[in-house]
């Protein structure tokens, strides 16, 4: 063997190793799946004062320990579109806030960093959130404009390494993701895990948070959810959205609220309620390897039944494969 061929061979090996390494390196730091997960489905036909009573009964099934804790409710508040179910309904958010207060929470805060609309006060006003927050004396934090802390990501699907995240989110004891159940033209669905895009601050990453799109939406969901644990989910599926979500779809009543102590289980159940196969949704499928449980065998159904709709939710053509029929 000549020195030249040895050098060429070594260089080839080095390039090969560098190219292949990302495929073999672990994508997450540890397996944090619970042995079993719990889900409750509450039937609700409309957004009314009755919600609080139904919600507290369902929450008591979980025997949550929130006494003395600071609770952060993270709704999905994107933009205002009259007549379309774009955002988590303010009545559901205020009902959840009252419930956590009744369960002994030290404080309850609503926080969101809207993804498209820079004027959060405008969105709060037009969606009816401002009146609801004032009525129930619930503090609101605009996560797009919060103080930021550099946080190392605890998974490596995007390769970003770190994100700057709002101090408000990091300083709360108990994070509740409150998504609007919707289809999404880039990620198939937007549920409790995708809802966490809203904690990524616009002041750093812009409107929308385009860096997450370039890094891969499914991958970004996994990195964010591995880094910021979601302690509980209350998903608004009373009126959901199908078609060209998250902004331009059409309303689709599901008449349900989905609660869970595991975001992966919550999203898998919501996907089934939409008539989708959760194992075909990349971020749910991958999250089920280390963040939570998607298999029905590992999910205890505390109340309600998962019934697939006769007609699955409409989706954009690229996600037609999600539908079960």
């Amino acid at each position, binding site marked *: 063997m000549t020195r030249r061929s040895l050098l060429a061979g070594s260089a080839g090996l080095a390039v090969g190793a560098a190219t292949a390494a990302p495929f073999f390196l672990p994508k997450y730091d540890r397996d944090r799946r619970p042995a079993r997960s719990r889900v409750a489905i509450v039937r609700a036909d409309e957004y009314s004062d009755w919600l609080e009573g139904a919600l507290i009964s369902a929450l008591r099934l979980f025997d949550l320990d929130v006494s003395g804790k600071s609770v952060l409710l993270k709704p999905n508040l994107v*933009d205002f*579109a009259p007549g379309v179910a774009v955002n988590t309904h303010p009545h559901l958010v205020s009902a959840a806030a009252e419930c956590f207060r009744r369960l002994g929470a030290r404080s309850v805060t609503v926080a969101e960093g809207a993804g*498209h*609309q*820079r*004027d959060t*006060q*405008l969105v709060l*006003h037009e969606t009816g959130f401002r009146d609801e927050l004032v009525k129930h004396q619930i503090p609101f934090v*605009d996560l797009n*404009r*919060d*103080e*930021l802390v*550099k946080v190392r990501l605890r998974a490596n699907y995007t390769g970003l390494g770190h994100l*700057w995240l709002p101090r408000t989110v990091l300083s709360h004891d108990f994070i509740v993701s409150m998504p609007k159940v919707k289809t999404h*033209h880039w990620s198939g669905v937007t549920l409790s895990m995708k809802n966490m895009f809203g904690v990524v601050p616009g*002041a*750093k*990453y*812009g*409107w*929308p948070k*385009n*860096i997450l*799109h*370039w890094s891969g939406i499914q991958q970004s969901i996994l990195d964010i959810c591995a880094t910021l644990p979601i302690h509980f989910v209350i998903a608004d599926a009373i009126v959901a959205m199908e078609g*060209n979500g998250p*902004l*331009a779809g059409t309303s689709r009543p599901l008449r349900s609220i989905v609660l869970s102590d595991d975001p992966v289980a919550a999203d898998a159940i919501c996907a089934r309620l939409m008539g989708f196969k959760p194992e075909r949704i990349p971020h749910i499928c991958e999250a089920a390897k280390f963040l939570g449980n998607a298999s029905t065998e590992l999910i205890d159904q505390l109340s309600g039944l998962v019934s697939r709709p006769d007609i699955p939710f409409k989706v*954009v053509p690229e996600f037609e494969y999600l539908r079960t029929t």
Partner: protein
Amino acid sequence: MIDMALRTELKNGLIKQELCGGGWGYGLTVRQAALEPTCLSLLALRWDSSPARARGVKFLLGMQNPNGSWPAFSSDDSDGSGLTALAVTALINNGEMALQTEHGLEWLLRSKGRESHWLWRWKFETTDTHVRFDPAKFGWPWQPGTCSWVIPTALSMIALKQAFVCCKPDWVSFRIRRGTEMLLDRACPGGGWNAGNGVVYGVPLAPHLDATAIALLALGGEQRNDAIASALKWLWRTAATCSAPWSLGWSILALDAYGLPVGSLVDRLCALKDQGLLEDSATLAAVILAIDCLVQGNVFKVGS
């Protein structure tokens, strides 16, 4: 008629919100200086003789990254923020046309949306076609390595137009021309601008007040066309019922720049003071700038 006492009160309030370490943060409880509230505050205080203004300019100059850009907030990574243009505009309007401002301009001229690269342009023209836009028409991104968006593009065009008033080098003219084309390309079909594109999956998006206003300010001095006319019409109609100070403030600045009467909108903006909506420094500064456009001139008004 402008309530001068209110104007003074708002300015004093803004000065009080200056952080101990320098600069301005967004909210009252936020102790971290951020680029946008700092720059808007400096623009709002540009004729003010208070020491806060001088300290703010010094702080802003101290924040600059080695590559000429500005970070989004103090302690941020040094790759550069899409709001760097706002820092340049703030420095120009505070009489700081120094070497550091020039470095900022040089960075702005290097910064461009990722779709400007032939490979991504090819992707958007051939396979990724759900968003209707012409990738050959590019502007400025929020973050390096991402696509062009309306607000960073518009703010960059304003900075370049203010920095090069009389004679523009070819590259500056080229970037302004491309930015203009990009804004016109991304306009919503019904008038105005959303965050970026106007049509996604064949569905027209709804315009946003602040994005529309800032885009219109950037297009000041350009030849009037249907996109500008319909955006102005939409803005005029929508601002009339807007009760959010940030959007209303920017709307006033844009409508004023096009010579439309904004007195009644300013009155309504002043009335919002008592609703506790002006705690955020960036919003408070935008409100002062909007009120001031009737008194001290419109800081964002630009020519061609």
